[in-house]
Structure formats: structure tokens, C-alpha cells
């Protein structure tokens, strides 16, 4: 099949290229000396060798957030009532659902693929192009899949953490997955991206709306995290990985060994064995671009 690379696509691609170039040419965090096992363990657990660059991008994003994103979201909230915003989220989820369907199948989750297909049909028809989540009401609950999750199921490591302004936390695996999903997997993306259809504006509009609905859905939670944390960057990185791990497990409880450390500290000051290094296993593989699955949020019922 011929994939049409439109102007929008190529511009997205060049942005991605610039970001990757920046990642590769920037100074990496230096690995702590091997004789400092605590620092080494913390370094490996964070899996964030690009931390200095990421923190710079994160700070840039917070400025962008203050001067641009937040005012837009606040305006959106002021103009569109809760119900309306939920409908917009439902719509965004519905047009994205072919991507989820593909990945349900690639992960061998046929029951969930059935749910996704059923939702696509009923929401597009009875749900008026997806503005109403009829599926949820007839026992077909929403879920979201993406290439990053499929790769994780297939055994891929998450790769180094990356913070992308506007899009938020991700990592090499999920960032790659996001781009492939957007340009190669998504049928609506092919259609809008085909220059013959002259729908570039719709492609951009969709991207903008995705950013807006994502921010709208996550802003309260991340504000709260910001207010309650000592190091917002680090807390967000941790929370984000855990959310991705949860999505990859499709909501199943985390494996028990992830919490073995709880058993190591039965009494204050008495640590059983050298098992404290086991902390690296506390976090399962995870993470991904916030944007893709988050429009679900308000729609979640």
C-alpha cells in the first residue's frame, strides 16, 4: 500500500527529527561512579540518561503552559460545559479507535478487539459520530491501545525517558510508537494526510484538539501532583511510568514481586538481606506519549 506523505506529515516528521537530533547531540547525564552504589541504583531506576535535557524541555514546557496552553484550556472550560467537553473527548476517542483495534489484535486480545470493534460501530452510528459513548452504556467499556503497548507486550524495553513539550512524558519506545501509529497505522490519518483530499487543515485541527483535550483531561491531576511534590519532574516521571505499566497490563494487578521490598523492612532498622537493590524491579516497563490515550478521561463513563 502506498502511504501518502503529506505536507503535514512531513512537517510532523521534521519536528520529530529535530527533537531526536537534539536528544542525540545534547549532553547526557553522567553516570555516577561505580563505588557509589546508591547513586548508581537511583540512576538506573530513573532510566533517564537525558535528564539534563529533559529537565530543560520540561521547564520550557512549563513556561509554554503558563503563557499559552493554560489560558486556552481555561477558555475552553469557560465556554464549553462539562458535558460538551465529555462529548468532544468521546469523539476524539472514537476516531482513534481503529488504532486500538489494530493493537488489540496484534496483542492477541481478541475479546478486547471485539469490544473495540463493537464500540466503533455503535458509537459511530447510535452515538452520532462518536459524540456519545453508547458502547459504555451497553457493557462495552472504553480502553486504549497503541504501538508502545504492543511493543511492550512483545518484550520491548521502554528505552530512555523523554519529556516532549506539549506532548508530555514519553520514552523512546512509546515516542516511536506514537509516530508510527499516527502516520502508518491510523486509517483516518492516511485519509486526511492524502494531498489529493486537501484536508491538511483537518489533520492539524485534529492534532490541536488532541492536545487540548489531553491537557483538559490531565491538568487537574498534574496540578495536584505539582502542588504536593518536592520534585515535580521526578514525581511525574514516576507516575507516568506506572500509568503506562498499568495500561500495558490492561489493568491487571502488578506482579507481586514488584512489591517484594515491602517484605524487606519488617522491623525498623532491620533489613533482611542485601535485597534493597531490588528496587530497580519495583517499576515494570512502561511509559508513552501522554497525548494518545488520554482523551479518554472525561469520557470514562
Amino acid at each position, binding site marked *: 500500500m502506498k502511504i501518502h506523505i503529506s505536507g503535514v506529515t512531513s512537517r510532523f516528521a521534521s519536528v520529530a527529527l529535530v527533537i531526536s537530533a537534539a536528544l542525540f547531540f545534547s549532553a547526557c547525564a553522567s553516570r555516577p561512579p561505580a563505588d557509589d552504589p546508591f547513586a548508581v541504583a537511583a540512576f538506573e531506576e530513573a532510566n533517564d540518561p537525558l535528564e539534563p535535557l529533559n529537565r530543560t524541555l520540561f521547564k520550557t514546557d512549563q513556561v509554554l503552559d503558563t503563557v499559552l496552553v493554560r489560558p486556552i484550556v481555561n477558555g475552553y472550560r469557560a465556554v464549553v460545559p462539562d458535558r460538551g467537553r465529555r462529548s468532544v473527548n468521546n469523539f476524539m476517542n472514537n476516531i482513534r479507535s481503529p488504532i486500538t483495534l489494530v493493537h488489540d489484535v496484534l496483542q492477541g486480545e481478541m475479546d478486547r478487539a471485539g469490544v473495540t470493534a463493537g464500540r466503533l460501530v455503535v458509537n459511530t452510528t447510535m452515538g452520532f459520530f462518536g459524540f456519545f459513548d453508547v458502547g459504555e452504556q451497553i457493557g462495552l467499556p472504553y480502553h486504549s491501545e497503541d504501538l508502545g503497548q504492543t511493543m511492550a507486550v512483545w518484550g520491548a524495553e521502554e528505552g530512555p525517558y523523554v519529556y516532549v513539550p506539549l506532548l508530555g512524558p514519553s520514552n523512546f519506545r512509546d515516542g516511536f510508537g506514537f509516530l508510527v501509529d499516527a502516520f502508518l497505522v491510523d486509517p483516518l490519518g492516511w485519509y486526511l494526510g492524502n494531498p489529493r483530499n486537501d484536508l491538511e487543515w483537518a489533520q492539524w485541527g485534529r492534532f490541536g484538539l488532541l492536545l487540548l483535550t489531553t491537557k483538559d483531561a490531565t491538568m487537574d*491531576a498534574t496540578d495536584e501532583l505539582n502542588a504536593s511534590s*518536592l*520534585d515535580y519532574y521526578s514525581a511525574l516521571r514516576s*507516575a507516568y511510568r*506506572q500509568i503506562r505499566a498499568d495500561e500495558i497490563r490492561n489493568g491487571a494487578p502488578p506482579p507481586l514481586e514488584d512489591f517484594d521490598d*515491602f517484605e524487606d523492612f519488617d522491623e*525498623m532498622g532491620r533489613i533482611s538481606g542485601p535485597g534493597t537493590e531490588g*528496587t530497580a524491579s519495583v517499576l515494570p516497563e512502561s511509559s508513552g506519549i501522554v497525548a494518545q490515550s488520554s482523551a479518554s478521561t472525561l469520557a*470514562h463513563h
Partner: protein
Amino acid sequence: MRAHILFAWLFVVMIGPTAPLHAQSGASDPAAFIGDFSQKGISDILAADIPNNEKQSRFRDMFDQYFDIPYIGRFVLGRYLRLTDEGQRDKFGTLFEDVIVHTWSRRFSEYDGQTLKVNSTVDDGDNGAIVKSQIVGNDGSNIGVDWRLRKRGTTFQVVDVIVEGVSMAITYRQEYSTVISRGGGFDGLLGEMQKQVDNLKGAG
């Protein structure tokens, strides 16, 4: 990413039981323990007609009783536990409790009739269980909350709260690890926690 994930931490106490039949049975089974906790939380604190500082002190008492705070504190310190002396650990324990009490109690006034629905209990090793529940709001919203419990004598205590897949204990642990390793060491962490508590007190 799902709705109001982290925000929901602040709501974990803003819950009412939908399984009151079990609530009176005490705490011999994990679901009953959580039902009991949520019922008390809502009637004695969230929905109670008392001043906010009274709510806060009641919450602290409940938190002490229902949560194994020293245990959580040790988990959060993780590998750094060995680097600390008893004085530092005591100070950490006090500050950690203060951080949580003040962080959560800022939100008590936002309680708006949310209820807790206990869905199931999953075995979690020798002496524990995970109680899976949902916080259900008036607008139909719901947030998944899992409670990780450990057996303590004839009852239980909470050792972690996992909201939409995000564990409170793991998040604190990783964040504090970053704070310690970025230069100030353990005393640097204690200093920042103290500052945070002061700020929260001032804001509240």
C-alpha cells in the same frame, strides 16, 4: 492516561461505603476493613459539620490507626534506610506523616458526596490482600483505587494506595530518591520536607 488520576489521591479519604452491611463486622476480612475505613472517613470527617482543623486532627488519628505509617516510610526510604541513623529516621517518620496529613486535608472541603464501592479482594502474598474499589462521583465518574493491606494481629493496615495504577508508596519513593541523589543527601530531603509542611500549613 486517565482521568484525575493523581488528583484522586486526595480523594481517597473522601469516600463512603456502599457495602455498609459488612462495615459492622469489624476488620477481620479485608473488604470489611476498607468499608469500615471509608464509612468512618466520611461520617466522622468529610461529611461532619466540624471546623477544618478538627477534621485534620481526626484524620491524623484515623491515618495512624488504619495505615502502617512506619512500614510505608521504610518502603519509601528503601535503599537509603541503611544510610540513616535513628534520629534521621524518626524525623523522617514525623515529617512524612505531616506531609500526607497536610496534603490530603487541604481537599476535605471539596467533598461532594463521592462513595466507595468495594469490588473484589485479591490475595497478595502471605499476610496481605489487595482490595479493589472505585470512588464513584455524583456525575457518574469513577476512579479505580486499590488498597494494599497487610495483616496486623487480628486486623489489617494499609501499606499502599494505588490510584488508577499509580502507587502512592512507589511515587514517593522514586521522588524522594531523586531529591536525595541530586545533592543535598538525606538531610537535604528532610529540609525540603520541612519546608513543604510549613508551606502546606501556611496555605491551609
